[in-house]
């Protein structure tokens, strides 16, 4: 019996193990399929397609889920041109439904590859579909709290006001009670008045002490003067100025997390006096495809502002210039117009990092003025910064540079006339 049970045990164990392995294996197999699909999807399809919405091509989720004929889909993906050449009715319909835009031919994708992609897309779409209801509820609730908070605050204020009123009444009652018992206060008041008179006398004595008064006056004048000096120096200096912009453009996300080069958007900095605020077509290079934050279910309202400004309809991918309205950014760095600051000189020629003047923009969620932008600040930098003359033939003929290098001195911007009035003011 014991043997049998032992054997049974062994057997069941091995069976269980086998089943377990099998299950595990199948699970592993299923995973690689979708993962491979995801990699392929991102490498080949994302330029034109998204799972849940229309980009250049149609939203793949619903389309691929609705179409069950995988064989046809393989053919379509691998060579839609060939399929259309045969006047395949389904293919022609797809072609005509999507603005007669031909899809790229992917001859390099095998049937298995396409299968993997389809699996991935269908799985994604399914994932997207299921939690929709709860997400919708969530967002509805999300917008609620702001009102709740306001009402709550109003309630707290009213309650606090009531408490103060009640406490005031209580104090009043207590005072009346005290006044009714006249004997007690009479005894206590007398000595306190005596004391205060003495204090007053002492204070008067101090007031008559000319040295002491003089000391305080000097202190006051010094403090006041210093305060005024600092205030006047900082008049019209707006360091830290952080206006509210029409679009909450997060530099920390773009320049920080995404590591986009500053000049990708501010292209003028290389060639012009102006760094230039990017025109919206630059935004659309990415935001035609990206309309929401990573992982967000709803399109971002801030990105939608770009579409509105351009008169762009993300559903139809069409621009309507009659609806276009320019975005009025608020200028953060305001140099007076009497000072000419050429960005290209500093960025392209001198090779100065944007952050030197604009601060850690890559960490700013909303840009603020980092530097004081005073003339003193300019001059200081010109006096300290070495000229980036290496490899620039422009500086080859400059006797002064040669002399200084020979003597081992620093060649600063100032030594090349960089602090003369007419270099910036004309």
């Amino acid at each position, binding site marked *: 019996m014991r043997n049998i049970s032992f054997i049974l045990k062994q057997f069941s164990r091995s069976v269980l193990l086998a089943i377990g392995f099998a299950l595990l294996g199948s699970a592993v197999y299923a995973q690689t399929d979708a993962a491979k699909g995801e990699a392929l999807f991102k490498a080949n399809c994302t330029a034109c397609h998204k799972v849940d919405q229309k980009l250049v091509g149609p939203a793949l989720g619903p389309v691929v889920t609705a179409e069950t004929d995988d064989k046809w889909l393989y053919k379509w993906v691998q060579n839609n041109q060939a399929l259309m050449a045969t006047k395949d009715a389904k293919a022609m319909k797809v072609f005509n439904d999507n603005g007669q835009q031909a899809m790229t031919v992917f001859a390099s994708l095998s049937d298995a590859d396409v299968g993997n992609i389809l699996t991935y897309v269908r799985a994604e779409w399914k994932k997207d579909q299921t939690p929709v209801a709860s997400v919708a509820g969530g967002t509805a609730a999300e917008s609620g709290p702001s009102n709740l908070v306001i009402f709550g605050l109003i309630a707290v204020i009213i309650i606090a006001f009531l408490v103060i009123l009640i406490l005031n009444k209580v104090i009043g009652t207590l005072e009346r009670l005290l006044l009714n018992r006249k004997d007690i206060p009479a005894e206590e008041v007398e000595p306190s008045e005596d004391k205060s008179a003495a204090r007053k006398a002492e204070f008067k004595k101090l007031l008559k002490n000319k040295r002491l008064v003089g000391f305080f006056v000097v202190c006051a004048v010094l403090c006041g003067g210093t305060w005024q000096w600092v205030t006047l120096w900082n*008049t*019209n200096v*707006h360091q830290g100025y952080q*206006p509210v912009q029409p679009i909450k453009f997060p530099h920390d996300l773009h320049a920080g997390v995404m590591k986009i080069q500053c000049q990708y958007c501010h*292209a*003028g900095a290389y*060639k*012009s*006096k*102006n760094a*230039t*605020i*990017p*025109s*919206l*077509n*630059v935004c659309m290079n990415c935001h035609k495809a990206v309309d929401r934050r990573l992982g967000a279910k709803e399109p971002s309202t801030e990105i939608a502002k770009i579409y509105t*400004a*351009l008169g762009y309809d993300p559903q139809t991918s069409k621009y309507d210039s009659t609806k*276009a309205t*320019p*975005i*009025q*950014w*608020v*200028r953060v760095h*305001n140099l*007076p*117009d*009497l000072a*000419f600051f*050429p960005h*290209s*000189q500093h960025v*392209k*020629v001198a090779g100065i990092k944007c952050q030197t003047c604009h601060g850690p923009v890559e960490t700013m969620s909303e840009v603020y003025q980092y530097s004081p932008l005073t003339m003193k600040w300019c001059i200081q930098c010109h006096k300290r910064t070495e000229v980036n003359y290496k*490899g*620039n*033939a*422009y500086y*080859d*003929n*400059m*006797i*002064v540079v040669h002399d200084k290098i020979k003597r081992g001195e620093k060649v600063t911007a100032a030594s*090349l*006339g960089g602090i*003369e*009035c*007419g*270099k910036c*003011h*004309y």
Partner: protein
Amino acid sequence: MESNKKYWKGLEELNNSPEFVELNKNEFAEPIPIEEILSGTGLMTKTPRRNFLKALGFGVGAVSLAACEKVPVHKSIPYLIKPEEITPGIANYYTSSFDGHAILVKTREGRPIKVEGNPTDILAGGGLTAQAQASVLELYDVNRLQNPVKDGEQTSWDAVDYFVKSQLATIKAAGKQIRIVSSTVNSPSTLAVIADFIKAYPTAKHFNYDAVSYTGIIQANQNSFGKAVLPHYRFDKADVIVSFGADFLGSWISQAEFMKQYVSNRNSKSLAGKKMSRHIQFETGMSVTGSNADVRIPIKPSEEGIALIALYNAISGTTLPGTQKLNNDVAEKSIMIAAKELQAAKGKALVVAGSNDVATQVLVNAINSLLGSYGTTIDLDNTSNQFAGNDHEMADLVTEMKSGAVDAIFFLNANPAYDYYLAKDFKDALAKVKLKVSFSDHGNNGEGVSTLGDETSSLCNVIAPNHHYLESWGDENVLEGYYTIVQPAINPVYNTRQAEQSLLIWSDAPVKDYYTYVRNVWDKELLAKGGLSGQKGWETLLQTGSVKAAEKTASSYTFSKDLTAVVQKVLDHSKEVTADGDKVELQVYQSSVMRDGKKANNPWLQELPDPVSKVTWENYAAIAPKFGEKLGYKEGDVLKVTVNGYSVTLPILFQPGQAQGTVSVAVGYGRTLAGPVGNGAGQNAFPFYSYRNGTMQTAAVASIEKTGDVYTLAQTQTHHSYEGRTVIQETTFDKYVKDASSGNRSEREHKTYTLWDEYERPQYNWVMAIDLNACTGCGACVVACNAENNVPVVGKDEVRRRREMHWIRIDRYYSFNENVTKEKEIDKLDNLDHVSVVYQPMLCQHCDHAPCETVCPVLATVHSSEGINHMAYNRCVGTRYCANNCPYKVRRFNWFNYWNDSRFDNYLNNEHTQLVLNPDVVTRFRGVMEKCSMCIQRIQAGKLKAKIEKRPVKDGDIKMACQQTCPTNAIVFGNLNDETSEVARALKSERTYYVLEELNVQPGIGYQVKVRNTKETEA
């Protein structure tokens, strides 16, 4: 000997009149009345203590409140979709053309702000006239018509089209006449459009009407050689030039082109080769050309014909029948000298005359034929298309209109209601025409949005406003074989439409879009002329701006007609304009600045002083000083000039060099519907024209009388005086050939002691060289500087107060031909007929030891390590010490906020006009000094460009605005540290001297001695 020669800017300086002496005591004409306040009752009045405290309290409070205000929020609005070629902050240049010159239009962020000559331009090689420089301002003129107008009401293009087309249909059906009147059209595309229009309406006829025409020359060539053309004159090929009243360096035919040609034989390069042309001018009033001549002989208009006959006789050695003797010994003698020199230079001689009389021009042709000028200095095969108007056509038109035969008339860039001599006749006749259409683009009576247009369009039922040329497509063909393209540099600002497009629509042409039309014309024939074709050819054309077909060989022509009848006509003409009794001979001329008055509403041109008289904002009656004194007139007296019942009142200007017994009056002024700038500036002299022998004649017999009024002209000539210090140095060509440094009294060899420390100029030493022999005084540089540096226009009143703001001015100096020294001045009134003139462009000299810098209490003006005198406007507190201490008088004080003050409504006090401002130069505030910055924005930009391209700055990379526009290259700018630079070589010339060198301020601008090709023998 030259050291005693006296130079003077005006008669008041020559005579040291008390007013002149008084005005010169002060740097500024009207001192601030501080003294009065301090010494007079200002301090004596009692202000109650309470009132004082109230005012103080309010003042402090207001200031604090104002200071509390947050800094205004600046908005930054980027493009929605940025055009690929635009980078904010970087200028784009587009080729186009103006008056046949290939130009480059500088645009910033889509708006044209400056016009430069295209270096490939065959006319002036990158030089431009003042008119071209000023043309960009007209784009922003708020007096432009903003919508089509029908019967005085703004309307839509559809309404206009419907009306015009239905009217034309009726007229066509009735077989009535249609006329198109334009100023000369040389655009192949426009001509094709007009031809198409005529095809659609066969009764239509087009003719050119030029306010100032060259019919005389064209007709004379028809009579002499059977070619009704305006020839191409080649002053560069002429060694001896004799001109009878032709102002070829000013308003005659093609100013910039002739300037370049003329100076090519007189500039440093030519002098270095020991070669200099000789120029003799016979003329009535002193013109720019006459002032540049080596010998200038004043003659009356009536003497011109007789002098020409005498010249013909002298050259041919015959005596024409009817020859008369000149009543002018000096002229007689000079004619003999001129004849001898012309003969000696056969084949390299040129005689031109400004007269519009056919017979006179035939005589000139005969002389030129004797001299062998045809095929060398006059090209009758590669002709000029600049002016093609024929005067008799306008006269015929008026007759036709009166008869009621004409039912429709179109005016394209023509304004006969203003510039036709019988304007009233014309207007009366015009009233009989049913359909009157004008393409006028601007003009206003100064009230609100313009619905009137100019003088002619205000009489029309339809105004179909044309685009400004910077908004247009088109082409020009001023010289045979030279085609330039006009391309828009901005979208139309207003609801205007190109005239050609209107004509295409009205004639129901198959191609209604004018751009397509122009392209077709070019594709069909013009591109091929430049060896281009197709889309690529078109694109190349848009980049280069012009095509040039191979020049035909200029063949020689011989005059073989009988001159007897011609001579009789010339003599008759002389007789007609001879004044007898107390009458005077009137010369009506075109000033080189205002020309025919089409640009009268341009404040840059109005404020540009006339090169010779230095008068701004109006015209005047120029008479000789001696003649004026004889008649008992004083300068500034208002004179009533009457010819044939038409009279105008004009202030007198005593003009040295003016022929005795003559009065000269300029046309182009006295507009009534030009706009607020041009309206009321001067008086209209066009009615003084007369129509004789088929052409317009510019001379007449006038009676003059004093009205008793006195008027002060806004004349800049004696502003900024040197108080008798000699700033001009000159020599004669003969002496120059013997000794290249003759006339140069430079004190280089003297040991100098200096109060100041020496500073190094390690990298650059920006300097300038100005060749006095190349400068003709035209003033294009002044307008170019205005446009580049946002120099404000101050208006007539402020000019009278000596407050003009020009950073560069052209000083004009008179001197006596003989060496009249102070001791020998008794006979000077006789000598005032024969004065010689020198022009000197004067701008900040960027002295190394600048006197202005040492007196500035706030260090607003300091020196740079590149040799430039910097001016930091925002540091300036307006003490004006610097201006007082500047020996060159080149500093200008801002008395007002010219760009934000309703008193200066004629220029920048308007957001729309402010779009013309150069964003690379600030506008200056009231109370601040300003002066030439040596276009520091261009220097900085040039250096930056070199740095970005990692190369040294090349000579010629950086050009000053004044230098770039100068057709004669009189101004050279560059780095003196670079020994191979053009400027370094120019300054090494023996002719170089520095103005007021004796002060040891070490100016950075060297001038080159003026050389005159005068001979010892002549008057």
